[in-house]
């Protein structure tokens, strides 16, 4: 007989406090245990006799994946019940605001949409870095907490290094109708880009107040997103900025080769809306043209396009940050930094480059310095930065340019790298000097504190020593 749970009941030391709103697969309880600070959530699957085996499988899959997840963007998992006794997953009750609650207020101010987008994309990036794809991202599963976005419910998730039992369990698409990606509709459950599609749908909803594809009730209804784009955001509200429309559309590309392939790149674009390349949207075919498109171009061929494995883009970092000091023009070190940048970028076909230069200011809020022709140093540096990057021949949209004003170049680089989810930093270092050894250089600090890989580029020491020896000049200030 199925076991009844009630407030006050104790399971493995967890005292059930109250039942929370629960879905069809499990009952969710708020609970407490003496040795754990704060409330706990117990997710107890419905394992009644005669219950569909997929509920047990779903529970075992979530158990398997949750055990392997860590970090601030998932709840802390406290304990797992034994399937032979009482199966449950005990996790931290995450204090914060559910995006579902926020979505009820949509349309939201664009700044708010952007903020939620950045937070959620960062959480996705952290999840994907652990080899896990969520596959059921929706507003209810995102909590905005003090520490950032926290993702809930891994019942449909997939771990890249573990068997995917769910793939064989259902003939109907698994996911939530409003947010499911086109490839999931066709049964593909292996691409992190599916989560980016779902996030695109959520941002669309937050910006416009409407779900991009509605709430289809049938598989055929869900398949429509393979053939028909959602209405342009700006057709719903002309006030929506073009960059936001562009970013959301790129999240919702049916062809995964055109979609963001990495959540870090989405973070970067949302952080730098002024650098988003705006492309005019092609009009949707209408009337007879639409019919013919459906018949010859958009039918099964379209499905084939979706089924096609996303092209192998390589394993390199998705976002590369290169910091270069051009105050002395493009010198030997700047050239070598460019060469190294090219090598790092080549490791991944769709990698993005953020070129950064730092304008040192004495105090924050310094008035902009102006050159003889009245152009600000800021603009000059931006122009030099673009000139420097030109030989890399990066197409529009693959590179962005940033001049940071800061007292400490190292801090500015580190902060920029973290905010933009850089996967690799390239930075230059001048030859060593007694003073720099004493004070510490920019590159040293970046290497010590960066949360990603760092390449330090240095012109071969012999040449540098000769040159500075010949000119008698003291070594130049460190690269930034």
């Amino acid at each position, binding site marked *: *007989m*199925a*076991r009844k749970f009630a407030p006050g*009941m*104790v*399971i*493995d*030391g967890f005292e059930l406090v109250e039942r929370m709103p629960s879905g069809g697969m499990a009952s969710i309880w708020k609970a407490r245990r003496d040795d754990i600070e704060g409330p706990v959530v117990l997710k107890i699957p419905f*394992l*009644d*006799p005669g219950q569909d*085996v*997929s509920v*047990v*499988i779903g529970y*075992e899959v979530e*158990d*398997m994946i949750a055990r392997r997840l860590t970090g601030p963007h998932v709840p802390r998992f406290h*304990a*797992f*019940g*034994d*399937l*032979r*006794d*009482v*199966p449950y997953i005990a996790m931290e009750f995450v204090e914060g605001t559910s995006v579902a609650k926020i979505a009820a207020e949509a349309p939201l101010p664009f700044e708010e949409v952007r903020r939620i987008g950045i937070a959620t994309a960062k959480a996705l990036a952290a999840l994907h870095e652990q080899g896990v794809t969520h596959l059921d991202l929706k507003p209810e599963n995102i909590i905005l907490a003090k520490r950032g976005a926290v993702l809930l419910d891994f019942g449909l998730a997939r771990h890249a*290094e*573990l*068997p*995917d*039992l769910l*793939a*064989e*369990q259902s003939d109907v698409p698994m996911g939530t109708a409003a947010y499911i990606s086109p490839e999931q509709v066709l049964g593909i459950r292996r691409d992190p880009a599916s989560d980016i599609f779902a996030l695109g749908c959520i941002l669309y909803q937050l910006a416009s107040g409407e779900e991009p594809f509605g709430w289809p009730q049938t598989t055929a209804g869900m398949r429509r997103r393979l053939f028909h784009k959602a209405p342009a955001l700006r057709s719903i509200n002309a006030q929506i900025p073009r960059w936001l429309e562009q970013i959301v559309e790129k999240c919702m590309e049916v062809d995964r080769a055109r979609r963001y392939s990495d959540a870090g790149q989405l973070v970067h674009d949302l952080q730098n809306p002024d650098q988003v390349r705006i492309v005019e949207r092609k009009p949707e075919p209408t009337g007879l043209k639409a019919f013919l498109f459906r018949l010859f171009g958009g039918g099964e061929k379209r499905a084939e396009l979706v089924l096609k494995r996303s092209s192998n883009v390589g394993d390199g970092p998705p976002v590369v940050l290169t910091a270069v000091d051009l105050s002395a023009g493009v010198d030997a070190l700047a050239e070598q930094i460019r060469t190294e940048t090219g090598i790092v970028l080549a490791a991944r076909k769709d990698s993005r480059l953020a070129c950064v230069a730092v304008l040192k200011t004495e105090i924050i809020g310094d008035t902009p310095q102006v050159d003889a022709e009245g152009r600000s140093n800021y603009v000059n540096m931006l122009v030099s930065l673009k000139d420097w990057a030109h030989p890399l021949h990066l197409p529009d949209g693959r590179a962005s340019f940033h001049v940071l004003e800061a007292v400490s170049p190292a801090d500015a680089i580190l902060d920029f790298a973290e905010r933009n989810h850089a996967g690799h930093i390239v930075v230059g270092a001048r030859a060593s000097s007694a003073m720099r050894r004493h004070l510490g250089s920019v590159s040293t600090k970046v290497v010590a504190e960066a949360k990603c890989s760092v390449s330090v580029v240095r012109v071969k020491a012999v040449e540098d020593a000769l040159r500075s020896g010949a000119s008698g000049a003291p070594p130049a200030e460190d690269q930034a």
Partner: protein
Amino acid sequence: MVWRCSQPGRKANARSRPAHIHAMLIGILSDIHSNREAFDAALEAMQSAGAQRIVLLGDLVGYGPDPAYIVDRARALCEAGAASLLGNHDEAAATGNTSGMSENARDAIRWTIKQLSSDQLEFLATQPLSLREGDVLYTHAGAWKPQGWPYVKEAADAQRVFETQDAKISVCGHTHVPAIFYCARKGAVTSFTPLPNKPAPLFSSCRSVIVAGAVGQPRDGNPAACACLLDTDAMTATMLRVAYDWDKTAEKISAAGLPAWLGMRLKIGR
């Protein structure tokens, strides 16, 4: 399902294990193929991993240069409590019947027979085709017809095992390529390629077919010896990959006058 409320503070970390599978670490070594260096390295790895029981899954001989050493060591292991099964190469060596074998395999069997004493051949001839221990079933080839030596390469093959056997966990070898198949309900089989040295989970809600890979002649592109560590407590299967001196084995193959390809393939794992 029986529901019981467990005691507070009870450790609930182990994955759920069906009560009728005795909890232990089982080292499974399949397709050793007279490869002394690989066998020694794999056994040592199993010892370090804490294996409490050794199961030799068949094809002790064939292809490789050290059949007598392998048979003697297998016999010693069995006397100490290990289990050993019959493989198609063992059968061919014991009976002299090489029908259905490739030319390289046949040449190697003819050579192997000459290296073994009647005692050693007798040991091979007396190995069983299958072994059932609790809810774990061991065979060398596909369990639906072990004497016919079918391969378990894909989901449809595993499906035949699930249809004809009721074991919670079936373990076989023969393909030289490690794999795990899961079946939660009739007709739905999930295929999985376990990663080297990473425990792959087994599930309470599923029956599993584990294909153990080859100690002495891996063919999945990784030349390292492959042996399977089955943990019936944590409910995981780990394909231990152990590097060994395959150049040495290849040299011995060449010195013995065995086909050169048999040495070459060890270096590339094909």
